[in-house]
């Protein structure tokens, strides 16, 4: 088929200044004097900061296993520090020869997390998989079975400890927060006020005071002679803290459901728990999943606060690596290294929450 061209004009290409690199630049960087000014300022800042930063990070950096004195002479970063201390940073004070155990544990945990992110695997048996994973994780860390040397919890540290606090916090706080959210929406005045009291009290105070409470007051609450492990105490504080924030998120989901859902369930003659389990919670939780993931993200960052009550998590382990007088001045390298680790986890979680928000959006929004 030939196109008849009689009487019709061929389309001219747009002016060169509107397409291609120049066009893009004009449209995005230099449209108007104000934007041009901004671009110039930002460009200047970038040019004066980025190349030195790259020099420091890569080009002038020391990568080899050299003496700290050599590092001090260098212009750039001293990644030797990380190479020298990475075992201490990642695993804390965990017995050196047994560190393969937390490593295996972390890899296993990350694999399961990876699987759980895929919605195809969202089945009831996933819960059982998680339980098994956690048990194996604790077994690997704690030892005492299958010929593994027992390792006391005071020695657990680094990334495995951070992940443990976060994962157990997530798993335990979740059901607790559902109960709290339901309690807060319940029309039984006493239950309601207890839940409101708990949630508002915990949300009104900083996590650090809860951690102090757990480390200094919890031992006094226990009967004489019973002592709770320091790690467990911090874990309890984190669970209490997260569950109240999570409860508010889930309450948001519950409130977003149209009233008709409740009325419909009631008219079918379902009991309260049946209504919640079969009608309300599946929908409410689905709406709340993205903010729930965000809450977990916050909690993951907050686990770093246990460093203040002397648990050797990733942050404190890194600070212990600076205790070596020879390497004391390389704190920037250490902080950059763990900042990257934290950032990767958090960035992944925030992107995943945004992804879920899109995928799960099945029209509850008006």
């Amino acid at each position, binding site marked *: 088929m030939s196109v008849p061209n009689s009487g019709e004009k061929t389309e001219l290409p747009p002016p060169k200044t509107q397409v291609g690199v120049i066009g893009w630049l004009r449209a995005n960087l230099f449209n108007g004097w104000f934007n041009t000014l901004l671009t110039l300022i930002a460009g200047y800042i970038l040019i004066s900061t980025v190349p030195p930063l790259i020099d420091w990070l890569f080009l002038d950096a020391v990568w080899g296993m050299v003496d700290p004195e050599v590092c001090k002479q260098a212009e750039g970063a001293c990644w030797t520090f990380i190479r020298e201390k990475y075992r201490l940073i990642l695993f804390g004070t965990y017995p050196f020869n047994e560190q393969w155990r937390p490593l295996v544990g972390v890899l296993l945990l990350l694999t399961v997390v990876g699987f759980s992110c895929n919605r195809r695997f969202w089945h009831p048996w996933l*819960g059982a998989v998680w339980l098994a994973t956690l048990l194996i994780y604790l*077994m690997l860390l704690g030892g005492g079975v299958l010929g593994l040397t027992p390792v006391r919890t005071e020695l657990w540290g680094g990334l495995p400890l951070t992940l443990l606090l976060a994962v157990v916090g997530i798993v335990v706080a979740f*059901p607790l927060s559902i109960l709290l959210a339901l309690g807060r929406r319940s029309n039984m005045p006493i239950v309601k006020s207890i839940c409101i009291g708990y949630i508002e009290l915990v949300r009104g105070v900083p996590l650090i005071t809860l951690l102090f409470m757990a480390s200094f007051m919890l031992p006094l609450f226990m009967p004489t002679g019973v002592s*709770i492990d320091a790690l467990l105490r911090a874990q309890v504080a984190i669970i209490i803290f997260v569950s109240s924030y999570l409860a508010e998120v889930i309450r948001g989901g519950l409130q977003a459901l149209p009233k008709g859902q409740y009325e419909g369930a009631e008219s079918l003659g379902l009991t309260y728990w049946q209504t919640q389990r079969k009608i309300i919670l599946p929908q409410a939780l689905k709406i709340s999943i993205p903010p729930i993931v965000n809450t977990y993200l916050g909690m993951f960052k907050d686990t770093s606060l246990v460093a203040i009550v002397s648990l050797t998590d990733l942050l404190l382990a890194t600070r*212990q690596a600076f205790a070596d*007088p020879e390497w004391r001045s390389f704190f920037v390298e250490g902080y950059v290294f763990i900042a990257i680790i934290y950032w990767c986890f958090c960035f992944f979680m925030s992107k995943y929450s945004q992804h879920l928000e899109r995928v799960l959006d099945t029209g509850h929004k008006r």
Partner: protein
Amino acid sequence: MRRTKWFAAATVAAFVGAAGVAQAGDTFDSVMERGTVRCGVNTGLAGFSIADDQGNWTGLDVDYCRAVAAAVVGDSDKVEFVPLSAQQRFTALQSGEVDVLSRNTTWTLTRDVSLGIHFAGINFYDGQGFMVPADLGVDSAKQLDGAEVCVQTGTTTELNLADYFRAQNMSFKPVVFEGFEESLSAFFAGRCQVYTTDKSGLAAIKSVDAPNPDDYKILPETISKEPLGPSVRRGDDAWFAIAKWVLIALVQAEESGITSDNIDDMKANSDNPMVKRVLGASGDMGEKLGLDPEWAYRAIKQMGNYGEMYDRNVGMESPLGLDRGLNAQWTDGGLMYAPPIR
């Protein structure tokens, strides 16, 4: 839902199980049952308690714990060391997390009476001092008017510091840190011109932690009395007695000339009644404490007497190189004076 709840409950149970809930009614019984002594120590202070890369603990405070373990359980390796910060130490002891607190802790009235603990004795007579960079040009604490001082919170150090400057009518600016490490690295970074803690601690920091020991100097003044010693929980007199008399036996052993090398010879051949009582060759000292006759023999045999511990950890044979000073035997003009074991 049900599944989730069951799952959560199981997890909690698993975690509690793994973490372990310590039951400690009678301290001695629970130590015997467990087979180890739990001992609270400093997170890292050279000479007193410090762990190497492999997690082996050394130091004067650590050696005391080992001696207790040798006396009670029979083996100086049967100790679980629990590193504690200044803030955590008393809670850990009160709550039964540790059986003995041996963490360069100053004996004061408030602590002895109102914190729920008992001091079992003194294993190091110390005093607070100041450390400054050598190039600061300061020779005496009297010249410190207006200085910024790095100090760790929750210690008697913090209070003595305030007392001293008030008494001298000088001003200062405290920079207070939660942790020992933080306060130290702030000082080395130059945040403060002065660092203050017990003089033994200053010696340890200067010789071990300082990037270059010659860059720092310890000022001559001693501004406080710091009797450091182990402590135990209130309300368990039997255990208190054991903790107290193990320390006394170590001191007495030095006075009587018993060392880890000659102990077997002494035990077999000595006619000195005191030596015989200490080593269990005569008398029923062990029985009175609720232990076997060889309690002190094991402690001294495995860990050495007080003098050996001192020399090894903080004395001339150690990097700290401290004189015996006040910590010499009373017969040498010091304050180490063991009540009679009889």
